[in-house]
């Protein structure tokens, strides 16, 4: 009997060895395909990677584009940071990120990278106050004090002052933030750093920061879960997620002093400001009078010089044509998915940036 088990074990071991060998063999050949993908003969399939925020919109846009142009686009929703590092390693045709590349990432790439704004999103403050029927109003100072742990009760005088007529409970404030590194956190902390001196020196901005107080949830759904479950909780989530899940969110006071309800329209409005030629602008706290202050662009990143890794001119042209479609005709799919369409200023800046892309020194788009 022990012999039989021995034989079985041997067979299992042998099988494991074989499958291991075949796996690694398969894996390496696949990797090879991936790394030379840009140079591969199949120029009818582009590869992109990055921001998970963009993923639902890209899925819709790329499937529509595929219907009319027959171009396959494989987008991997791996996160902004991972998208940038894949572009740096030249394993993808384009990256996508919710934050412009920082100095360290810039120094890691071998050639200049173009940032093309493709959509805009907003970060909203959602809360759990079952007895409060009116929409809560928040000012930048109150928001920063809450997240710094200085305001700890909902009936604090500062909150009551801007929410006259609202009966605020005396419950303690429970703060929910993202525990995973994310573009959402980046937009939110960039905003707080801009409007509050203490936040800027004590905490700073980034996709992960050292939160002074609060609980962390993984992803939008994690933060939303904490908010829904904990009475007295407040946390920041993406606008699209809040709308889709019917969560209450606060009106924020913008730079002009108006209290703005976050919506697709108010985000687009926030982006209707003078945009620098490289489009690397944070849409937080912009001068727009009717713009929601905690907004941000999402960018597609490509190399300015498209001739690298033996890429064909055809492939480069297809990529540029696709991106041009995304910022023009593709924008019609934004609204239905709760993404803010690009403002007129953003579209014209994006188009100008796309025209600056070259293949072997010659411009690609005319």
């Amino acid at each position: 009997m022990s012999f039989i088990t021995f034989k079985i074990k041997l067979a299992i071991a042998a099988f494991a060895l074989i499958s291991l060998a075949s796996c690694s063999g398969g894996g390496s050949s696949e990797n090879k395909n991936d790394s030379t993908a840009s140079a591969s003969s199949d120029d009818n399939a582009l590869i992109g990677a990055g921001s998970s925020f963009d993923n639902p919109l890209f899925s819709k846009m790329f499937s529509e584009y595929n219907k009319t142009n027959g171009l396959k686009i494989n987008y991997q929703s791996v996160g902004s940071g991972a998208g940038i590092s894949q572009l740096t390693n030249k394993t993808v045709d384009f990256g996508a990120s919710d934050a412009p590349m920082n100095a360290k990432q810039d120094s890691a790439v071998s050639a200049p990278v173009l940032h093309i704004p493709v959509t805009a999103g907003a970060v909203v403050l959602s809360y759990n106050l079952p007895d409060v029927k009116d929409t809560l109003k928040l000012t930048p100072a109150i928001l920063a004090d809450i997240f710094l742990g200085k305001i700890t009760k909902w009936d604090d005088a500062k909150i009551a002052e801007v929410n006259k007529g609202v009966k605020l409970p005396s419950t303690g404030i429970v703060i929910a933030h993202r525990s995973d590194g994310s573009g959402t956190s980046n937009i939110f902390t960039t905003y707080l750093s801009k409007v509050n001196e203490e936040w800027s020196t004590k905490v700073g901005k980034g996709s992960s920061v050292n939160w002074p107080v609060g609980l962390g949830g993984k992803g939008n759904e994690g933060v939303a879960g904490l908010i829904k479950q904990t009475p007295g909780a407040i946390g920041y989530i993406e606008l699209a997620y809040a709308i889709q899940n019917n969560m209450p969110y606060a009106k924020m006071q913008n730079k002009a002093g108006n209290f703005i309800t976050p919506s697709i329209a108010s985000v687009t409005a926030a982006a209707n400001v003078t945009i620098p030629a490289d489009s690397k602008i944070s849409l937080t706290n912009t001068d727009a009078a009717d713009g929601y202050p905690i907004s941000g662009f999402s960018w597609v990143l490509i190399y300015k010089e498209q001739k690298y890794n033996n890429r064909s001119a055809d492939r480069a042209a297809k990529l540029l044509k696709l991106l041009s479609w995304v910022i023009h005709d593709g924008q019609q799919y934004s609204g239905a998915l709760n993404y803010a369409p690009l403002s007129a200023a953003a579209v014209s800046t994006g188009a100008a940036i796309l025209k600056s892309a070259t293949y072997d020194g010659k411009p690609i788009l005319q």
Partner: protein
Amino acid sequence: MLDTPAENNMLTLSDGSLGVIGSVKTPVNVGQKVKRLYRQIRTENIFKRMLVLMGILMILLVLGILLTLIVESMPSIKALGAKYLWGKTWDPVQDIYGAYPFLLGTLLTSFLALVISIPFSVAIAIFLGEYYPKGWLPDFLKNTVELIAAVPSVIYGFWGLAVLVPLVRSLEIKLGIDPYGVGIFSSALILAVMIIPYAASLGRSVIQMVPSALKEGAYSLGATRWEVIRHIIIPYTKSGLFAGILLSLGRALGETMAVTMVIGNTSIIPKNIFAPGNTMASVIANEFTEADKPVYLSALIELGLVLFLVTVVINMIGKRVISRFTND
């Protein structure tokens, strides 16, 4: 074709590479016997070599992982030094990394989970090993316990968030503590449930291996069932029971997903067992994808290295304890 005995024998041999029992019964002449023995020795050798190869492969794999972790965490070790271990701040913005809150969180949740799970796992082991080794109810219980080990950890996370966290929150309100719900205590409860099967099934098999002569001797001297368990079974199986507990501790140390969902993920040092915290595995899972600076990435990998070493140290201590128990 298969009529000749030689052919027949060949078939038996090729059928099972180690077909010793089958072929010994077949009458064969001396020449064939020598040939057969030679063949047999060769298969034996091949088998032995394969075993050695597998063993070496395992060692290489572990050393390779250790080496990769050390090499990849070099930038962080150079930049932060030993301060990394007891630094209390984890601030990716300013490139300050201290693993102390996460080290504390990992050890707190794991040991608390262990303390909670031991009464259950030992009770199940005694019930299945001694009281009811056979029958449909024990079989059902045994399968259920094994099923606990097979449930994916993300499901425990969901269950924890939806069921356990509100319960813990109402307990916290009764106790007058900040009612977060999530925290070290909730994670320890989830972990306790997840690790019960490891200690329980190992405990069950060692309890079943207690020689019946010993037990019968005790009974014939007038010992009660409780006395047999207390004075015969527990002393006889303590190293096995301890090994099972050690195995479950290893599982608790490395658990990621379920813990991430209910621990509250904050890098503030927990003040009590109800406070939110974070574990090393959970931080790695949360922050790895968006670690956009080389030192940051390296600090996260160093966290993996620390986790690896903590597991090794705890295992070594466990081995020492087991061998002391067995020598008694």
